[in-house]
C-alpha cells in the first residue's frame, strides 16, 4: 500500500506539500529547531559565554566601553542591581543579561533545546503509550476495555496541570526509583514522562473508538477467521489503519506538551536549575518585568511562535491525512 504509485500516503504527502501555510510553518519550526541545536556554537564562538554559570561580577563591552553586567539600580532608592539591557551586538550580550549576569540570548537557545526536546519526546512517548493502550482496549473489548476506559475517564476528569503538579512535586525533589530504574531529581526524563502520561487519554480515547469500529470491519474479521493471532492482527491490520490519526496528533501534542512544560517550569516544578527552558527563563524574568522586559517577552514569543507553527502544520497534516481527527476541544 505504501509503495503503490497513488497510495494514500503519497496522496497525503502531495496534498501537504501543496498546503502553503503548513509548509511555511514547517520551515519556521525547522529554523527554530536548528537555531536551538546550534546553541553551543553561538555560546562558544559568537557570544563567548557560559549560559549556565552565574556571572554576577562580570563585565562586557558596550559601544567600545566596559560595562558591568549588573548595574546599580537607578530607580527609587537606588538599591539593588539591574542587569544589562539588550546591546543588539551578538558578540556582547545581544539581549542583555539576566539577574545572575548570564547571557539571555545564549540561554534562550539552550532553553529552547530543552523545551523542544521535552515537547517532542513527551509527544512521542504519549502517542506510543496511547497507541498501545488505545489499540489493546479497542481490540480486546470486555473487561480489559472496561478497566482501561475507566482509567482514561479518571485521568481525563483530572485537571491536567494539577495532575502534573502532583506528580512533579512528589518526583522533582527526590527523583523516581522503581526497582532498577533510577531517575535523578534534575533529570529531564521526569517532566517528559509526567507530561506524556497526563495527556495519554487525549490520544487514547479517540484511538480506542476507531479501533472498536475497525474491529467490526470485514478485513479484520477475515484475519480472525483465517486464524491470525491477536498481536499479529493488531500490529499488521489495526496499527496501519490508526497510524494516520497518530501522526496527526504528533505536531499538536508537541505544541501542547511544550506549553505544559513551560507552565510547569514557570511554577518551578518542571525543568530544574541550572538547566533552562523557555518556561524557566520567563520565570527568571518575572522580577525584571518592568525594568528588563526582554527577559520575559522573548522566550514567550518563541514559545508562541513555535506552538503556532506546530499547530498550523498539524492542521495541514490533519487535512491531508485524517480530516476527522480532533484534539480535546476540537482545536
Amino acid at each position, binding site marked *: 500500500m505504501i509503495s503503490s504509485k497513488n497510495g494514500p500516503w503519497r496522496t497525503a504527502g502531495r496534498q501537504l506539500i501543496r498546503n502553503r501555510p503548513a509548509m511555511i510553518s514547517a520551515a519556521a519550526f525547522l529554523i527554530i529547531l536548528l537555531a536551538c541545536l546550534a546553541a553551543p556554537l553561538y555560546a562558544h564562538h559568537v557570544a563567548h559565554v557560559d549560559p549556565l554559570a552565574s556571572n554576577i561580577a562580570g563585565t562586557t563591552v558596550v559601544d567600545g566601553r566596559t560595562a558591568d553586567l549588573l548595574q546599580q539600580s537607578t530607580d527609587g532608592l537606588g538599591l539593588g542591581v539591574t542587569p544589562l539591557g539588550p546591546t543588539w551586538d551578538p558578540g556582547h550580550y545581544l539581549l542583555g543579561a539576566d539577574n545572575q549576569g548570564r547571557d539571555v540570548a545564549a540561554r534562550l537557545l539552550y532553553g529552547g533545546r530543552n523545551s523542544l526536546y521535552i515537547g517532542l519526546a513527551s509527544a512521542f512517548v504519549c502517542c506510543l503509550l496511547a497507541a498501545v493502550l488505545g489499540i489493546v482496549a479497542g481490540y480486546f473489548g470486555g473487561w480489559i476495555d472496561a478497566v482501561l476506559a475507566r482509567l482514561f475517564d479518571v485521568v481525563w*476528569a483530572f485537571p491536567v496541570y*494539577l495532575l502534573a503538579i502532583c506528580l512533579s*512535586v512528589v518526583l522533582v525533589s527526590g527523583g523516581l526509583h522503581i526497582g532498577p530504574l533510577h531517575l535523578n531529581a534534575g533529570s529531564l526524563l521526569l517532566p517528559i514522562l509526567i507530561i506524556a502520561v497526563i495527556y495519554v487519554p487525549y490520544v487514547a480515547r479517540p484511538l480506542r473508538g476507531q479501533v472498536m469500529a475497525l474491529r467490526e470491519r470485514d478485513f479484520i474479521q477475515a484475519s480472525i477467521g483465517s486464524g491470525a493471532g491477536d498481536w499479529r492482527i493488531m500490529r499488521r491490520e489495526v496499527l496501519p489503519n490508526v497510524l494516520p490519526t497518530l501522526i496527526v496528533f504528533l505536531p499538536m501534542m508537541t505544541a*501542547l506538551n511544550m506549553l505544559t512544560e513551560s507552565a510547569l517550569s514557570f*511554577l518551578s516544578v518542571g525543568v530544574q536549575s541550572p538547566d533552562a527552558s523557555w518556561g524557566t527563563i520567563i520565570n527568571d524574568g518575572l522580577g525584571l518585568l518592568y525594568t528588563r522586559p526582554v527577559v520575559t517577552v522573548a522566550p514567550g514569543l518563541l514559545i508562541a511562535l513555535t506552538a503556532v507553527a*506546530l*499547530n498550523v502544520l498539524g492542521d495541514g497534516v490533519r487535512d491531508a491525512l485524517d480530516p476527522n481527527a480532533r484534539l*480535546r*476541544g476540537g482545536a
Partner: protein
Amino acid sequence: MLGYTIRRIGAALFVLWAISVLVFLIFFATPGVDPAARIAGRNADPATLEQVRRSFGFDAPITTQYLKMMNHLFLERDLTSFVNRGSRVVPQITDALPATLSLVIGAAVIWMAVGIAMGTAAAAWRGKAADPVITLLGILGVSMPVYWLGEVINLFTQSRMHETVFRWVPPLGYVAPTENPWQWFLHLIFPWLSLAVLYAGIYARLLRGELIGALREDYVRTARAKGISERRILVRHALRCSLIPVVSLFGLDFGALVGGAGLLTEVVFGIPGIGHLTYNALQNLDLPVIMGTVMYAAFFVVLANAAVDLFYARLDPRVRHV
C-alpha cells in the same frame, strides 16, 4: 431521565473516588519517597515528623492511611499545614473560592459571548475574509502561554503605558464585590480578558465546524424550503443544535478552571484564589495544602461535568439511551 440521572451520578461518584485514590497513591505510595518527610515540609524537625506519622497513621496498613486522609479532608476537615504551623487547609480553600469564582465566571461570560458570536460569523461567512482570521485567532489562543500573556498585559497596563492610556487600571490584586463592586470590576477586567482570549478562539472554531455540519442537515433544507430567511435558519435552527457540544466542552473547561486550572492567571494577576493558594503551597512544598486543593479541584470538575451531562440529556433525549 430518572434512570439516566441515577447512572450519571453513580459514574460521577465513581470517578471522584478513583481520583481520591489516585491522589492518595501519588502522595503516599510513590516508590522511593518518604511521605512523612514530604508532608512535614522542608527541613522538618524529628518531632514534627513523628507528629505527621501519627496524624496520618503511616505505620498502619495503606487502606487505613487512605481512610485517615479522607477523614482529615472531608469529614473532620481538620487537615493542617505543617509548613504554616496550625493553619487549617479546608477553610483556606473556602476563603479562596469567591476570588476564583469571580475570575472564572467573568471570563466565561466573555469567552462564551465572543466565541459564539465569532463562530457564528465564521460559519455565516465561510470562505470569506473573516473566516481565516477566526481560525488564526483560535490557533493563537491554544499557542500562547497564558501566564506569559498576563505578564505582557501587566507590562503595558502597569508600567509602560500606565501613565497614559491605562491610568485607570488599579494595581494588581483583588477587591471583594461586597466591598466595592466597581473596584472589583476594574481589578478583574484584564484577568478576564487574558483568560477569555485563550478560550474564545477554541470555542469559535468548534462552533464553526458544528454549524457548517448542521447547515447540511435535512431539517435546515426543510426550513429553507419553507422560505425562512437564511439568518433565521442560522440563528434559530442550526445554532440551537450546534451549541450542544459547545456546552459540553464548557462544562469541562469551567470545572477545570474553578478547580485551579486558572492557577497561572491568578498568580500573574495576584488574585488570591484557589490557584494562588496552590502556587504558594508549591513554593514551600506544603503538601497538605496541595492535596486539599487538588481534591477540591477534582470535586468541582466532576460536579461540573455531571451537571453538564444532565443538562445535555435534557436538551438532547438521544443521549439518555446510550
